């Protein structure tokens, strides 16, 4: 359908539209007009992605003199694929209605592992070796050597791509990773480098958060994006964590040992070069004297990770004299590693700020702040000079240099925490030194500064006023949308007691209680017997899930559960989990029905949809609080309190509840879908906890569903399922329309949509 939002003609690929999608587009459009950032919360299952894509592409179409690029960030590769598939649908619609005028180029960008088509490289086991395998075939010096000696292996796909030169371009269209691979195979061009190259010309780029947020990666991939871009962070409820992770480094014993090996290797290389090709080292020295840490234009394949510090904070000065000579630099690194080893020997937990750490480093190892700051760039330069190709062998020293650069650059927002062992397993010594970032606004700041509009959107951004504080920005639009329902297709419940009226909870003192474990098990058995198709269960942690499944097995409850449905479980092994998910879907498809056990904050909770028959019920066992004794968490809480005046308790509850809401929100994909959500913990009945849930869940949480026991929940579930099985009118009753046709949209004036907002 086609309709008008103010001065923009929107092309929407479906015959109908939800009113909230229209309202969402309207707000988004206003934010784009204002050239500002915005924060939009819309319930899952209301078609955020397609609304967003169609508005932005239509916006570009209606303003041809001002081409806006869309940078769409997803958290996972499968979300990237989903987004691209939706975009493809939209693009097909637009090209049939508008012709070639609406043709765009959209590419997804991922790692070499997901894009490589070279069978020899792919045969390698894990990702790091795909990267290294690629470099071994494509690095500039390898190719130079191969030009002299044709027996040396090179990558035929890359060679072909290079030969095609500037004519190697993607024709307009939407390319998923799969499409890119297929196109690359067909043309014989390397899809990875082709995509990397096309990113700067594409109208829409879809990639992972890190490509924009992690300065190490963003420096290479995203440095050429123009200011007139719209950046979208989808499913952004965890964005603060991504930001923090991007600037955090941890050093363990293995890292230091590896770094030592790396240093030895480098020293040997240096000796070798000194003997054979001393000119090379001298040339590097001269370059450094001139103040060029980076060696001008590198070949495409030689790019390394950029500096881990944020672009604004990198000094544009010459490398300090004491590390210009290769052997001196190696020596400095040696001292650094030695110092870190000494620090790891501690028996107590130590916590200090970067300033204190640097000054202590200066006194003990004689390395000053400025030297630290240049570590990464200097290492980079040295590695290139030494022509080291198997970079995955040198990851450890790289980590050390990252650490050094970060600690030398930042004085606030970070802390250094040394723990001799994990508190949950005090018998296993595993010392770790962590440089952890506490301030999410640091990493995202360059993005807000650089791009004209940044859209942060998710199904759960409640409380919506917290995100601007955490990320330190000022949105021009900050809205939370309701879900208009044709029928009450979601049914949240809070279960506080088992059938025996004893409270259930995963509180630390209760979680291993036999009665609680049994009551949780009975709940699942009963539900499995009445709910059709798929059920998803979320637990608070892997260890808790492992324990509870084993005790269910021992007391026979697991057998009862399996009498009704097959059981699949998320494990920490991603391959296994992926296959389990695949089988889970198969079981739901074939009608056998299945239960998926998963973990809040796990990979599955983060991005897998359990829509339609893949999830008719979600049970959240317990409140997924973080491990509150974690030193890093405590340090972060302290920082948040001091800097942003956010209370510890508030933040913990907010964090736990956003995870819970995220878990249960995965059941709804559209309004034709339906699902139940059970929050099984007595703590959810407390107002301070519950009120942190997003509005669209709260508005369906009836007062009578706030304090249920298993049998009451069972009764409600039966009623609900029966009600949902009835045929219904998709367009909604006469009172409020929940599905708008083109005429409806045309008739409605903008004023009518204010009711969609909270």
């Amino acid at each position, binding site marked *: 359908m086609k309709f008008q939002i103010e001065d923009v003609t929107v092309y929407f690929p479906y015959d109908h539209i939800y009113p909230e999608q229209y309202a969402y587009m309207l707000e988004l459009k206003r934010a784009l007009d204002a050239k500002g950032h915005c924060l939009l919360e819309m319930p899952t299952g209301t078609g955020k992605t397609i609304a967003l894509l169609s508005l932005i592409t239509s916006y570009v179409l209606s303003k041809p003199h001002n081409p806006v690029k869309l940078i769409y960030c997803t958290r996972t590769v499968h979300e990237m694929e*989903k987004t691209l598939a939706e975009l493809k649908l939209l693009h097909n619609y637009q090209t049939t209605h508008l012709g070639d005028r609406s043709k765009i180029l959209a590419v997804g960008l991922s790692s070499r592992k997901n894009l490589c088509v070279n069978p020899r490289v792919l045969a390698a086991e894990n990702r790091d070796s795909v990267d290294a395998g690629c470099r071994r075939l494509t690095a500039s010096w390898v190719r130079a050597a191969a030009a002299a000696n044709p027996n040396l292996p090179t990558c035929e796909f890359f060679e072909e791509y290079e030969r095609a030169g500037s004519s190697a371009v993607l024709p307009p269209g939407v390319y998923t990773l799969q499409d890119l691979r297929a196109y690359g195979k067909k043309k014989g061009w390397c899809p990875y480098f082709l995509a990397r190259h096309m990113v700067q010309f594409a109208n829409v780029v879809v990639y992972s958060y890190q490509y924009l947020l992690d300065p190490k990666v963003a420096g290479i991939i995203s440095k050429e994006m123009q200011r007139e871009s719209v950046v979208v962070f989808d499913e952004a409820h965890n964005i603060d964590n991504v930001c923090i992770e991007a600037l955090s480094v941890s050093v363990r014993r293995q890292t230091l040992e590896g770094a030592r090996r790396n240093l030895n290797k480098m020293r040997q290389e240096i000796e070798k070069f000194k003997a054979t090709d001393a000119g090379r080292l001298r040339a590097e020295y001269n370059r450094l004297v001139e103040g060029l840490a980076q060696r001008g234009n590198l070949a495409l394949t030689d790019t390394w990770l950029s500096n881990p510090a944020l672009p604004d904070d990198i000094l544009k000065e010459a490398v300090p004299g004491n590390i210009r000579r290769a052997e001196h630099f190696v020596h400095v690194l040696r001292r650094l590693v030695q110092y870190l080893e000494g620090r790891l020997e501690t028996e107590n937990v130590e916590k200090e700020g970067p300033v204190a750490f640097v000054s202590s480093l200066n006194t003990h190892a004689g390395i000053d702040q400025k030297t630290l700051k240049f570590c990464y760039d200097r290492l980079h330069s040295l590695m290139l000079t030494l022509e080291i190709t198997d970079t995955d062998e040198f990851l450890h020293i790289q980590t050390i240099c990252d650490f050094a650069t970060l600690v030398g650059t930042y004085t606030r927002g970070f802390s250094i925490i040394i723990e001799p062992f994990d508190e949950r397993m005090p018998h296993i010594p595993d010392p770790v030194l962590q440089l952890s970032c506490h301030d999410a606004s640091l990493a995202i700041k360059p993005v807000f500064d650089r791009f004209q509009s940044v859209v942060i959107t998710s199904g759960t951004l409640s409380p919506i006023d917290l995100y601007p504080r955490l990320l330190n920005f000022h949105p021009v639009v900050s809205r939370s949308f309701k879900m208009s329902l044709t029928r009450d297709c979601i049914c949240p419940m809070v279960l506080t007691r088992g059938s025996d009226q004893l409270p259930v909870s995963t509180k630390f003192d209760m979680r291993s209680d036999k009665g609680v474990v049994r009551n949780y098990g009975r709940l699942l058995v009963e539900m499995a017997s009445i709910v059709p198709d798929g059920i998803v269960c979320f637990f608070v942690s892997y260890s808790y899930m492992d324990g509870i499944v084993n005790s269910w097995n021992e007391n026979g409850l697991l057998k009862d559960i399996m009498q009704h449905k097959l059981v699949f479980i998320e494990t920490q092994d991603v391959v296994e989990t992926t296959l389990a998910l695949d089988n889970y879907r198969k079981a739901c498809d074939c009608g056998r029905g299945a239960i998926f056990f998963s973990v809040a904050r796990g990979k599955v909770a983060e991005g897998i949809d359990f829509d339609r028959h893949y999830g008719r019920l979600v049970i959240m066992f317990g409140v997924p609080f973080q491990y509150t004794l974690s030193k890093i968490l405590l340090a972060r809480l302290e920082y948040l309190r001091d800097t942003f005046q956010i209370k510890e308790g508030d933040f913990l509850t907010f964090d736990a509840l956003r995870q819970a809401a995220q878990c249960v929100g995965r059941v709804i994909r559209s309004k034709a879908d339906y699902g139940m959500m059970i929050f099984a913990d007595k703590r959810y009945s407390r107002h301070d906890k519950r009120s942190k849930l997003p509005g669209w869940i709260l508005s369906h949480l009836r007062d009578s569903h706030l304090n249920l026991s298993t049998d009451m929940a069972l009764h409600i579930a039966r009623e609900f399922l029966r009600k949902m099985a009835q045929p219904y009118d998709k367009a909604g009753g006469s009172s409020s329309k929940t599905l708008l046709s083109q005429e409806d949209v045309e008739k409605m004036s903008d004023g009518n949509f204010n009711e969609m907002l909270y």
Partner: protein
Amino acid sequence: METRHLIKRAKYKTTAKGSGIPGVLEMTKNKIVFKPNDPTSVTMINVDFRSIKGHKNTKEGSSNPPLINLILDQGGSYIFEFENFSDLQVCREFVVNSLAKSGEGLIATSDRPVVASHDEQLSTAEMELRMKLLQENSELQKLHKQFVLGNILTESEFWATRKKLLDGDSSQKSKQQIGFKSSMILDTLPLHDARTNKLTFNLTQETKYQIFALKPAVQQAFLNLVPNKMTEKDFWTKYCRAELLHFKRNAMAAAAEAAEDEDLFIFLKDDDILASEARRKIRRVDPTLDIEADQGDDYMHLPDHGIFRDGSKEITESQHELYRRTFLQDLNRQGEVVLEGRTIDVELDNPTKVAEALAQSRQESDATAKEERLYRTSRMTEMEDLQAPHDHPFAPLFIKDPRDYFDSQQANALKTYDDTRAGTEQLSCSLNTEEAYGFLRSSISEIKAMGLSAHMVRPEVALTVINGLTQNISSTKYQLGKNVHESVLDRLPNTTKEELLHVSGPLDIHSRIIEALLVFISNHYVVSLCQGEQTEGSHVKNLSAARGNKGIGSLRAPPAGFPPCSSYASGSRCCFPTLRVGFTEENGKGWREA
């Protein structure tokens, strides 16, 4: 082999709750005898299977004791409690068999001559099929008894209305294999007795097969080792030892043992076949759930970046990974195997053959596996309710041929009719028929005044009316059953029929069909609503004007004075069609006159 004779210890009870009298229950081909242990007791039961109408029993796993309840023809019942559920199972099967046989005997004695006299040309196969159907379906058997033996219908007439049963059933029942139980893994695990701390392994042919299916490495090892290197018994002993080590969850001990005994190592190490299979499968997995693809998608995955020991992250003990196959992994594996189903079709007696067949089927499944990744992704991304539906692989609920619909409603109609008879007001419908009629009438007049718009009828109204209409049309047909070639619709005036077929054709069942019917009614004013021979129908206006009568609503509940049916207990209501037709005609005349 079925047993001809069965003796079990049981308690006789008069009610399910009471304590009961212990004794011995003896069942033979056609008799049930119960002798109490206490010879002085007067309770002694001796009944014929023929006098038993049916049975009920408690389900295994329920909280009730194993009870069987034999219901007598003359009313009353015998309840027996068994010592355990397996006894109950055996007994139940016996009862089922015996009941079927006594039923068969009944038909055999009374049925054959009748059939023979009416339809000489019937093939024996056809006969057998009918017999079988009658045996399987007691409801049908009763009807048959009533009509055919009561000389109301001839044999061919009786079967003519049930053509579908005759040709559908037998051909569809192809050989179906029973799949694995969802909890099959629990069968392959040892039983642990916590009191004596004893582990019991129970290996049957079935469990061996399941073990092979679950653990390709064990199956491979079996093929390699047995019988060249060790006997089958040794093999399974080794296997049990390995399982024991697993059970103890002591990875260290397992590692130590495996180091000493290389055969044991096979059972303890990770399954290579599974691992390679996983690698292969991961390439085919639906991209929308491929978590594996994310692994290190942050351009350059560095170790030790990000927060290592955060409160939200988990910790694992990484030592002896090799020997730590977890129960959770086993559960996932069992899910996979259960979904694959039984891939082989050989006798389970010989484990070697089973293992070979499995190995082969595994290779075949590799070859036949297809890719449907792309298709699935595109389906996943679309929002189903925002656009017109896709062409589904299944047929949507949709009345293609109204004839089919009305025919299929026949059984329902009969049933509801009975319910109606028993008490119209009990229906879950919140409207009574008068109200429904009122609505219908106002709707019709509205339509007549304004034409048909996208007008909604209240669902309850719609439901009541549609039920009334369907039932009547269908039951009319049923009661006209004598002439099977003529469907109800054929009896309607031609134009009406066309209209009905036309309008109801492309509509789905709910909401809109009632509009269609309203159009139909208001256009033609002809409804073949009344029972029996009355095909002229009644003018709707007249109906509406009908003096305080219940109007269309009266279709559901027979009006007062309607001749009762003596045989309604059996579920059919056609004993006195002539009487009823007479009544209806009179009633109809009243309407027409009014």
